[in-house]
């Protein structure tokens, strides 16, 4: 390569230029998202099959989820997705302070999401609406209502873990941003985390109606 411009510090030795490096990272994260889709996919398959076997039970059991909490959480996650997108946009424009504010907002909303989840979970645990053999609630008609709660806890639980993971990574991003590691030329980690966070939102967009609205 005839380029004589100095290689930026964040450019690794095996890439020819920043562009190639950024594109590689992006393709990498998209393939990672693909694996996430198939990971959750197993559980969606599980849900679809047991729902098709026990439609009435699923309908009866879903009435015991709190639509308002679920809807609030949906709103919370959507807004957090928006703040995440805006954090990236701010960095593209070089407004570092705004980026930090938006990232912090995202973390805050994610925490709100988890707190609401906590209240939902503890209520269900208290009532005995639990997965598998732990189930002891009485009052849901239909075959084997514990299966509904197996699906509910597995899917929202796995999703919750992803939210926790997101919180950790975004917090790390805030620190890095504050230290000035990112610039309009290089903000790949923020962009990657953004894609991840939107996928977490996207999965919730399906979980919400499947459990809270139609069961």
């Amino acid at each position: 390569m005839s380029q004589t411009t100095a290689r930026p510090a964040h450019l690794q030795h095996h890439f020819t230029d920043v562009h190639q490096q950024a594109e590689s990272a992006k393709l990498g994260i998209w393939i990672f998202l693909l694996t996430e889709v198939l990971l959750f996919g197993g559980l969606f398959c599980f849900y679809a099959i047991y729902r098709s076997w026990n439609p009435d039970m699923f309908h009866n059991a879903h009435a015991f989820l709190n639509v308002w909490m679920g809807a609030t959480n949906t709103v919370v996650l959507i807004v957090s997705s928006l703040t995440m997108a805006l954090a990236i946009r701010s960095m593209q424009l070089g407004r570092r302070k705004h980026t930090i504010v938006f990232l912090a907002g995202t973390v805050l909303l994610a925490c709100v999401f988890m707190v609401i989840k906590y209240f939902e979970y503890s209520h269900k645990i208290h009532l005995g609406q639990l997965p598998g053999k732990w189930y002891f609630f009485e009052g849901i008609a239909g075959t084997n209502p514990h299966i509904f709660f197996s699906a509910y806890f597995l899917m929202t639980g796995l999703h919750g873990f992803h939210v926790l993971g997101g919180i950790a990574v975004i917090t790390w991003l805030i620190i890095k941003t504050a230290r000035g590691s990112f610039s309009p030329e290089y903000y790949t980690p923020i962009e990657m985390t953004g894609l991840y966070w939107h996928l977490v939102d996207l999965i919730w967009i399906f979980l919400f109606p499947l459990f809270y609205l139609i069961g």
Partner: protein
Amino acid sequence: MEHTIPEKHYLNEATGWKSWLMTLDHKRIGILYMIMVMFSFFLGGVFALLLRWELISPDKILMGPEMYNQAFSLHGIIMIFLFIIPSIPAILGNFVMPLMIGAKDVAFPRLNLASWYIYVIGFCFAVYALFTGGIDTGWTFYTPYSSETTTAVIPILTAAFVLGFSSIFTGLNFIVTIHKLRAPGMTWFQLPLFVWAIYATALIQVLATPVLGITLALLMLERVVGIGIFDPAMGGDPVLFQHFFWFYSHPAVYIMILPGMGIISELIATFSHRRIFGYKFIAFSSLGIAFTGFLVWGHHMFVSGQSDFAAVIFSFLTFFVGIPSGIKILNWMATMYKGSISLDTPMLWALSFLILFSIGGFTGIILGTLSIDVHLHDTYFVVSHFHYVMVGGTVMAIFGGLHYWWPKIWGRMYNETLARIAVVLIFVGFNVTFFVQFIMGTQGMPRRYATYLPQFQGMHGFSSIGALIMGVGFLLIAIYLIHAIFKGKPSGPNPWKALTMEWETPSPPRAGNFEGAQRLTHGPYDYDKVVPENALKQYKTL
């Protein structure tokens, strides 16, 4: 011609164990993988020999039925998850693929190293399971048995789960590398066919392995927490586990064979000294296999109680999986036709592959036939089928590849005479071991039993003799290959006079692979245009 080893290369560029354990060089990571994976192969082989030993007679020789269950489970789990799935991509893919596309490394070297460490963790879990109760479910972990048996199911599931991540990381890394790091000017149709095969494999790895992850996680939860989704007593469905498992594991058999096919494409072109016939057909059939492989998993479940509707569809679709493999075989034969074939050791492995894999593939079609499989399922016919594809196919390819690239990896040549003896031993030993198993299977000998009816005595004994021959063969290979690392004659950069790009580097290559950016001077199979010499960058133009 006398060759020398270059003064500085990736092996001696940095020294000390830390320089190996912290290395980001794809070539060194390939070697780290080689050590672990080949050790697993050895372990799995020991279990195989124990199994065959026990089966010399229907009476108890070494172990009772419980021990036998443990032995075949460990044999299967080690061979599948620790050996054959990582083998070609993680060892040879890691080492050669970046060289072949003119890249300085894989796209994410740290992820690459991480995948090796994750593999090691998975390996440790498997060994832990081995010493804390063993495992007797078979490599398929079918419920409800796996949720009830008292053996170390959780550690072994953790092992397989963890190993899955290692596989995903490798696949992800390779896809990005092949997309983004090809040498400037290298188009998709100038890629060596090994790279196409690795690419198709990587696609399966990232698409199928996450489902294995969630399946094993569900099984663990079923066992530990009792979520009941696979438990009929709780309204769950054990057949669902089989769907989840085979949605991964049928595509996984293509994770095992596709890279092997890639190696065979290279070997056949190089040793026929001829432009490969039907390049695009071979390339696209790899993608075709990757895709159709996802549509047929139910052929493992014909007698499991799945609906007849599903069974018929899966059987019908299974017939189509044979087509892409058939396309490859025919194109390889057409390449050899009128080529000037030299029968060096790697080519002998390739020819063994052609014969054995064809038998394995055809018997697969037989098993895919719904009505026939009802009789043959869970007999030695199945055992023989998958050994013909996995050993007769993949293992032949691995060793073909190792012999082919050994001079590139170490810069030194092995003893050709011993190597040829070894191929013959393995080829003969393999057929002695497994061909009779087809016959036993059709006569009703069920798999996974420690004993058998007296009528099978002769064939089981014969089979065990074959296993011994193979064992001797592999031992021989280990000896002369390791010897070659230290004492072999320097091979020069391009001993086989091949045209793919990895041969344009010195042997062993330098740490950063290429000096400056690599330029494409000819296609990977332009044997009709240039004649390569066994020296760097020297070609005669025809």
